[in-house]
């Protein structure tokens, strides 16, 4: 809480043009206020509301939000200030030296009652049929500060619903015009799609002519809306907040490691909400994180399957294990390979690796995207500046990445930094609307060599910047010359002062939640995924284990004995000989390492369907059957073994400082455009592909792309 208050005082929270808040200047003296008789010093640039909070006085509010600019239009935060003839809106009033504030006088009480009474004039009293019921600011504040009686006998205003697309449902009669959603859409999402048409009592929140919103962050307006005007369409009328069990966990839709809360009822995930983490996702999550959960119910593998006469038929675990035993008979370790997918937790991957090692296999590969990660140095595959570190940078060079699709939350952080900190962004790679101004340098990878040789204007930009950063995406690293690109960027980082005592501006942006963890576990094999698939085609790899691997062309595995372990019947099972049903991310506890190298712990929220089991238990049981019993009988024992190998995993939630070193492979970079790894934001993994909501978003995006002749 302390940290939050301190952070919220940063001027970065406010719109650069907001005149109501003074700029933070370290030289300025700290204003001293008296709040309810208590003297308190606050940081310069704080508002009266923040000062009150710090003094322990609760101030009700609707329009004010720490991470948005100040609107000051709901008037719920009125307090009394001595020598002021009328109450002041504390959220919009800069804290000044010598102010004497009262928050618990009869005048304040009356002011709050008055504001609420006015708000309720036009607000329908439809709480019993409102999805916000039970978690509604207006409901709560009316209970706490309202008069409890209504004196208004006239008709209420009614507003027509607005179409905003498949994710956000509107009941606009409930809107109290706080404009949080509008400010969010402009300031955080950067798409400026929402606005208020007409005025006064007739004011209505809408998108331009009711077109669907395009932002990948739009779901957050549901959380921001203090009333039930904007609610979740997929979750509509599904549950009441008080009947849900809440589990804190970590998201796996991208490598950000967004902190989430999984709300379940019985066995079913009802919705996913963000948790606040100032250094990771602040309090936002992407729409994929929020809405892909319906994919947890569809195309699930709920029992083992074994291929008989060319088709997969249901089997028992015993039969499935026996089939694997038979399939592996006579093979030696060099003929067995393992591939690891995008959504896996460390424990599962560790058990998988140990099992395969027990079988003598040496080729275990997790770089599904084909990116040329170099595991010899941890700094080579991390987002070293840290996500919050983006706010310290003054120049950012993107290389072969579209962060809007690959890590939406990171993109929001870049936008924030461009808006408040003057960050400038350049891009080498295909041009995309990233929601902030980008200087497009072309999409030719060879520009990197030019920069290194000092022949490109970007070299001067990097040189001139105080805290430059480069973000390399898997699009660049997955090229044939990916290792050379890695080396070139490494050299640029060293040459242009990206690496200093207290700053590391070298950043890699992995696209998958499991990537960094897998690299920490050393799950790389020479030749990568491509090599393994080629060898499978050539017949030298005779058995392959796929742990949630769905983003490869599995047809190469046609003649290879393939075991698929995963949660969904997606691309990976197509040529599988044995399918073992496993838990999805909400159904297992586990450690994840995000792109920054931050270790985070996810908790199990519900149980896997049918016969599906948590990954590690599958490998433990299978190891028994194969006669290579793994040395752990419990999850704790597994974790202990894992901690022993990777002690840094015990350091939960801290931002690591990876030691700098040499990495990559010196070599030529071929001229030619860089391709991006993600073509459809909404369809990047088996859970998202199983989700109807994501399918709808994807279809909508495609139809829009066709209509306007653009894509992406």
């Amino acid at each position, binding site marked *: 809480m302390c940290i939050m208050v301190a952070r919220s005082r940063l001027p970065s929270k406010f719109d650069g043009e907001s005149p109501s808040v003074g700029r933070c200047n370290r030289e300025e003296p700290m204003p001293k206020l008296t709040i309810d008789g208590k003297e308190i010093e606050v940081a310069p640039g704080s508002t009266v509301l923040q000062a009150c909070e710090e003094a322990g006085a609760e101030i009700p509010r609707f329009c004010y939000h720490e991470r948005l600019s100040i609107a000051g239009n709901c008037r719920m935060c009125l307090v009394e200030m001595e020598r002021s003839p009328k109450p002041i809106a504390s959220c919009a009033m800069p804290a000044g030296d010598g102010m004497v504030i009262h928050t618990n006088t009869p005048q304040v009480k009356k002011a709050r009652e008055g504001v609420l009474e006015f708000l309720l004039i036009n607000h329908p009293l439809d709480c019993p049929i409102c999805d916000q019921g039970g978690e509604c600011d207006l409901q709560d504040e009316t209970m706490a500060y309202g008069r409890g009686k209504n004196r208004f006998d006239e008709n209420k205003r009614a507003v027509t619903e607005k179409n905003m697309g498949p994710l956000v449902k509107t009941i606009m009669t409930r809107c109290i015009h706080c404009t949080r959603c509008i400010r969010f859409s*402009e300031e955080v999402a950067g798409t*400026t*799609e929402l*606005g208020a048409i*007409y005025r006064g009592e007739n004011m*209505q929140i*809408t998108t*331009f002519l009711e077109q669907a919103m395009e932002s990948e962050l739009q779901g957050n307006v549901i959380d921001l809306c203090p009333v039930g005007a904007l609610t979740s369409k997929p979750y509509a009328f599904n549950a009441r907040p008080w009947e849900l069990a809440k589990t804190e966990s970590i998201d796996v839709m991208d490598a950000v490691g967004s902190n989430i809360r999984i709300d379940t009822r019985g066995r079913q995930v009802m919705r996913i909400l963000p948790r606040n983490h100032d250094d990771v996702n602040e309090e936002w999550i992407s729409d994929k994180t929020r809405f892909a959960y319906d994919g947890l119910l569809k195309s699930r593998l709920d029992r083992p399957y074994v291929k008989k006469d060319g088709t997969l038929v249901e089997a028992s675990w015993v039969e499935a294990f026996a089939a694997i035993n038979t399939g592996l008979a006579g093979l030696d370790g060099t003929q067995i390979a393992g591939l690891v997918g995008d959504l896996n937790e460390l424990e599962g991957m560790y058990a998988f690796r140990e099992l395969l090692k027990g079988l003598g296999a040496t080729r275990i590969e997790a770089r599904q995207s084909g990116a040329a990660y170099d595991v010899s140095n941890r700094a080579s595959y991390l987002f070293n500046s840290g996500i919050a570190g983006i706010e310290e940078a003054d120049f950012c060079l993107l290389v072969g990445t579209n962060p809007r699709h690959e890590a939406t939350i990171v993109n929001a952080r870049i936008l924030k930094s461009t808006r408040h900190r003057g960050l400038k962004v350049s891009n080498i790679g295909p041009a995309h609307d990233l929601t902030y101004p980008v200087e497009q340098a072309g999409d030719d990878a060879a520009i990197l060599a030019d920069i290194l040789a000092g022949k490109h204007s970007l070299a001067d930009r990097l040189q001139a910047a105080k805290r430059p950063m480069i973000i390399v995406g898997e699009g660049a690293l997955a090229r044939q010359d990916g290792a050379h690109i890695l080396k070139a960027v490494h050299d640029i980082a060293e040459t242009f002062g990206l690496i200093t005592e207290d700053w590391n501006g070298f950043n890699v942006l992995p696209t998958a939640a499991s990537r960094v963890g897998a690299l920490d576990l050393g799950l790389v094999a020479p030749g990568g995924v491509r090599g393994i698939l080629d060898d499978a085609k050539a017949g030298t790899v005779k058995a392959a284990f796929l742990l949630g691997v769905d983003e490869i062309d599995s047809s190469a595995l046609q003649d290879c004995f393939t075991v698929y372990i995963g949660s969904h019947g997606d691309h990976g099972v197509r040529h599988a000989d044995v399918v073992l049903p496993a838990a999805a991310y909400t159904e297992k506890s586990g450690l994840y390492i995000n792109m920054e190298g931050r270790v985070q712990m996810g908790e199990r929220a519900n149980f896997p369907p049918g016969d599906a089991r948590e990954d590690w238990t599958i490998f433990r049981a299978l190891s028994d059957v194969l006669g290579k019993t793994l040395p752990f009988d419990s999850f704790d024992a597994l974790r202990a073994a894992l901690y022993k190998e990777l002690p840094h995993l015990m350091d939960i939630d801290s931002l690591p400082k990876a030691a700098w070193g040499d990495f990559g492979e010196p070599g030529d970079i071929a001229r030619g455009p860089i391709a991006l790894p993600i073509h459809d934001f909404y369809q990047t993994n088996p859970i998202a592909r199983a989700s109807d909501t994501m399918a709808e978003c994807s279809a909508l995006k495609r139809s829009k792309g066709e209509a306007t002749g653009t894509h992406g």
Partner: protein
Amino acid sequence: MLEVTKSGGPFRFSDENQDEVKAIIAKYPEGRQRSAVMPLLYLAQRQNEGWVSREAIEHIAELLSVPKIQVIEVATFYTMYNLKPIGRHHVQLCGTTPCWLRGSDEVMRACTDMGLEKGKSTEDGLFHLTEVECLGACCNAPMVQINDDFYEDLTYESTKAILEALKRGETPKPGPQKDRQFSAPEGGPTVLRDMMSADAAKE
């Protein structure tokens, strides 16, 4: 639901207006070009027979690099931007207290009798009637504004006569429809008469 009518064709500022557009945009300091949104909407409205089409809104958004929703926010906030086609003669009838006391109901009756309906355009597309608040000519109440001209000191008859003249394609004389100069007293000056007659004598 918000209705912004499409004009059916692309919108661009006419050649005559191009310079005007440049001049308007140039009024605002570098980086604040979006401030030009209001005068440009107005210019578009004048060019487009008194209403702003959806195409015009989109064009202005693009011209100023302002998100479309923000242009429409402005266009809907101000009642004087018309978002659907409006009759050739836009009759804005003042119904505020001074005009009402002086007989704006009669003026309204004349309009209704001529087939005008509040908030609607006539079928022949000639007239559009809106009731507005005080237009600042209360001294000559009741009054209407038709396009750019004020018609004051109206009665049932004079209103009808004006509308009929417009219908015939004539341009009735704007200003007071009574025997007076601007807002001077009816029938000539009532004070300083001596001075005036002295002046007249001198000449």
